């Protein structure tokens, strides 16, 4: 009886045509914007048709883009983390401080990664174990981590050893190493999210946590895992930034949480969880690089770029909400 009723409902709601499913999705919007941005920017400056120029520009935000990929998974699972930028700064400060104090370089890197893991663990403890809203918890930890970085580094900048400097100048087949790492992480996380059981479970948790629990999914364990991975990846990204800049200050990537959230939103990740793809964030990261280098080439003040980023974030979230409302299953 119920079976036939359900199949009747299924017949009443016709499936969306294939072209609709493929084309009407946020990633398509991001992709079109990317093409549009590239064409527009190449009118501003012929440099834009130079692939190595774009690749070099991308190394400036590659660290944040890598973190944004993991953040995407956290948002899909229905949580959010605003502290990764502060985590990057604190891990980098702890790393730089440790090696300055005489710790051997490999050990200092491990110390930095462990610091990131501990920060992820604190976020997970507060938001999952204590069941406090992650949005407020991570505002608190954002201030806390950034404040600790300020305690460690004060107003000075800590130099890192010469042997550690210059990750962005290492080329692999003509592509800077940070970009290679970004693409590698994107492919890996895309496969995890799109083809594995855990990936499907992350979507399920974000769509309906109660249903996920009834389906026997250990939502808490997966979310804790995501926060821990985000913590470690942020620490690695922080040290990559240290290697690119040659020194560490407490205000490393200050305000970077805005750009990371923006990359995820612009790529079509749904702020309430359950929807989004790694591909979207991947495209959005490139889009942001095109936009910001385009504005730099056009000689716009950095302050105007701040304005544009703010507008982009609001437009992106309005657009994704609109598209998801239209394609509600």
């Amino acid at each position, binding site marked *: 009886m119920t079976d036939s009723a359900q199949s009747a409902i299924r017949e009443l709601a016709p499936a969306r045509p294939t072209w609709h499913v493929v084309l009407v999705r946020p990633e398509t919007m991001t992709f079109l914007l990317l093409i549009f941005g590239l064409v527009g920017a190449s009118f501003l400056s012929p440099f834009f048709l130079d692939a190595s120029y774009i690749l070099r520009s991308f190394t400036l935000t590659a660290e944040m883009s890598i973190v944004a990929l993991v953040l995407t998974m956290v948002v899909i699972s229905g949580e959010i983390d605003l502290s990764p930028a502060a985590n990057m700064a604190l891990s980098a400060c702890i790393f730089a401080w440790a090696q300055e104090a005489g710790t051997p370089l490999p050990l200092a890197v491990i110390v930095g990664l462990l610091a990131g893991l501990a920060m992820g663990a604190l976020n997970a403890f507060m938001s999952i174990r204590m069941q406090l809203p992650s949005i407020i918890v991570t505002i608190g930890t954002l201030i806390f981590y950034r404040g600790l970085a300020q305690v460690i580094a*004060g107003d000075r900048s800590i130099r890192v050893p010469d042997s550690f400097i210059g990750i962005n100048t290492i080329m692999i087949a003509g592509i800077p190493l940070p970009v290679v790492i970004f693409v590698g992480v994107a492919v890996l996380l895309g496969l995890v999210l799109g083809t594995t059981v855990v990936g499907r479970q992350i979507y399920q948790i974000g769509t309906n946590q109660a249903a996920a629990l009834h389906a026997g999914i250990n939502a808490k364990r997966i979310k804790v895992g995501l926060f821990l991975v985000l913590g470690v990846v942020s620490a690695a990204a922080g040290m990559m930034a240290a290697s690119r800049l040659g020194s560490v200050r407490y205000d490393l990537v200050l305000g970077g949480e805005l750009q990371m959230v923006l990359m995820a939103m612009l790529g079509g990740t749904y702020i309430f969880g359950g929807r989004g793809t790694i591909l979207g964030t991947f495209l959005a990261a490139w889009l942001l690089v095109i936009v910001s280098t385009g504005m730099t080439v056009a000689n716009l003040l950095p*302050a105007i770029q701040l*304005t544009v980023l703010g507008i982009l974030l609001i437009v992106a979230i309005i657009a994704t909400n609109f598209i998801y409302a239209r394609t509600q299953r």
Partner: protein
Amino acid sequence: MTFLRSILLRREAGILIMIVIFCAAVGLYKPQFLTGQSLRIVLLLTPLIMIGAMAQMLVLVARHVDLSIGSMLGFSAMVVGLMYREIPDIYWLVGFPVAILTGAILGLGNGLLVTIFKLPSIIVTLGTLSLYRGLTFIISDARQINRSVIPTELKAMSRTSPIFDIPWIILIAFGIAGITYVIARHTQLGRQIYALGSNPEAAPLRGIDVTKVTLIVFTLAGALSGLAGILYASRWGFVNPSNTGAGFEFQVIAAVVIGGVSINGGVGTVMGTVLGVLLLGCVAAALPLLGIPGSTQNAIYGAVILIALLIDRSVRQRGMISVAGAAK
């Protein structure tokens, strides 16, 4: 006994006890902390945060959050500063309505985005945090408004006093707290804000115009940020496009969360918020006296927020258990 118990179980009592213990501990170590002079320092540190905290309290009670408060403060202060610079002979009090109106317009912008597009306020205001800050740079051409431009009368408000030797800006801050108390406790709007935050689904069923209340709350938050903006110009005597109001939203959220305003909406009192602000002020005033560098202040604020969240949670759970016990 039950009367005493009911007072002690209130959230405000907990913060008051924290303040007393903190001040006593610092006073034991540095007796000069317990003088009228340091009370004055504490009070002078707090007026801006007090006003911002009232704004954030109303927003949080309505189950929203406003991260753009610091940027609205900066933008309003810059508008007023530019006005004083471009029209030097304008009457100085005109700055107040201009600042408040500017802030109100920005706040209304937040409210419209939240209500029309049904977006989460945290993401909208994260966007406008950046947007309004960028606009501040654009209108000021990235240049600072200098001391000489700000009217002397305005700067004097932070030092001169009409009564009891308490400077004007402190009186204004407590006046705003008083008005917020009246709005929250004794007006229909106040009850509607609490009802909306307690249960957003039920609020429209009880005849509350959710859109209107949300718009009013965000506009009020903007107007109060604008007021804090002109008082910033009074207190510090300059307006800087990148520094003015930067990070202000975090101090305000710290004060409000410590004051027992629930992040889940519907819960929070003006009294608790005032005490939260004073506790932050005491911490900020005690640091230099104890020889702790100012760079630790943000870490301490962050830690205090996390601890307040945990306390809030345990208090809520205890409350639920006692309610369940009473039901049996």
